[in-house]
């Protein structure tokens, strides 16, 4: 029996539905594009966008910036991104006679002029980083939110 992956993204779609990696339409399909890319295609074809994106890692949930953030009295001050993206990074190291590999998942919330990334080590899960960047050209970006 294939074990349930311990890392998955969860996205809320503008029609109110939820897309979950490794579940339903978004399982791994050998020879096809990754679930995230298939989600982006589905959104574009149906004139939808994401209202929130989060990562579940070993039962912990990390929330990216979202629209209508109604916690901690920050609703009036929080700002929603116009879109999201996701990519992976992989490092291979031939280090003193041992070839080791480390993978990272990189979820980003995009604003006009800058992006906020959450990068998580998904090989051993020990480290994560929050990074603000300028000038991103995401490989797989969701359709942009149009309403304020």
């Amino acid at each position: 029996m294939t074990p349930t992956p311990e890392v998955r993204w969860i996205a809320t779609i503008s029609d109110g539905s939820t897309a979950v990696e490794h579940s339903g339409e978004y399982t791994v399909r050998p020879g096809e594009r990754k679930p995230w890319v298939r989600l982006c295609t589905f959104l574009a074809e149906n004139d939808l966008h994401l209202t929130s994106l989060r990562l579940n890692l070993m039962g912990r949930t990390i929330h990216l910036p979202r629209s209508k953030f109604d916690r901690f009295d920050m609703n009036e001050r929080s700002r929603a991104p116009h879109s999201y993206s996701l990519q992976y990074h992989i490092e291979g190291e031939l280090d003193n006679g041992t070839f080791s590999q480390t993978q990272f998942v990189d979820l980003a919330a995009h604003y006009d002029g800058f992006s906020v990334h959450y990068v998580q080590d998904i090989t051993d899960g020990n480290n994560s980083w929050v990074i603000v960047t300028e000038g991103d050209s995401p490989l797989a970006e969701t359709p942009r939110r149009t309403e304020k």
Partner: protein
Amino acid sequence: MLILGNTEGWKLYGRLTNGNFLFADPTDRVYFSGANFGDVILSAQDSTHLATSGGAHRCTTTHLHNTKYLSGSTVSINGAGSTSLPVASSQCPLLFVLFSLEEIVIEGGSFYIYSTGDNPVANVTFYAAEGGVSSTWKEINGYNNRLTLSARSTPATDHDFNMACSYMPSTGSGVTGNIKIRASYV
């Protein structure tokens, strides 16, 4: 290690001069020598090999292609005269394959040698060029000198990165360092 649910990884092959490949075990080393395995290097390496972590020669019959730096835009391949870069992919000694169960595209990546903490390795000059792409050598000693790898925009389950390398130790031999290759994909 976490259970990821995705299945990407790097494989490293040595490309032999007879056109075959030698899969590098996770504990193997890339070994640069003078004319023969283990010979002292006079300027830049004249042969390239795979060796075990214990130093035993793995490509004993047919060696890896050798790409020796001559100038910023020229190379000697397997002892032949000067040729302009880029080195043909089929003549690069190292083949890194990023494999995946799913089709992926690659935004780009980087390739460099390093000592501890991504710092340069002492007493060595190390050049690399991406096969079929780089028209000049780049010295890639340390993260700040990394070679940027080209993007792969066509979805595929395997993406090849062919690397030509040239090793020039200032002490003749015995300098060891680490190799890092990175890619970003989805």
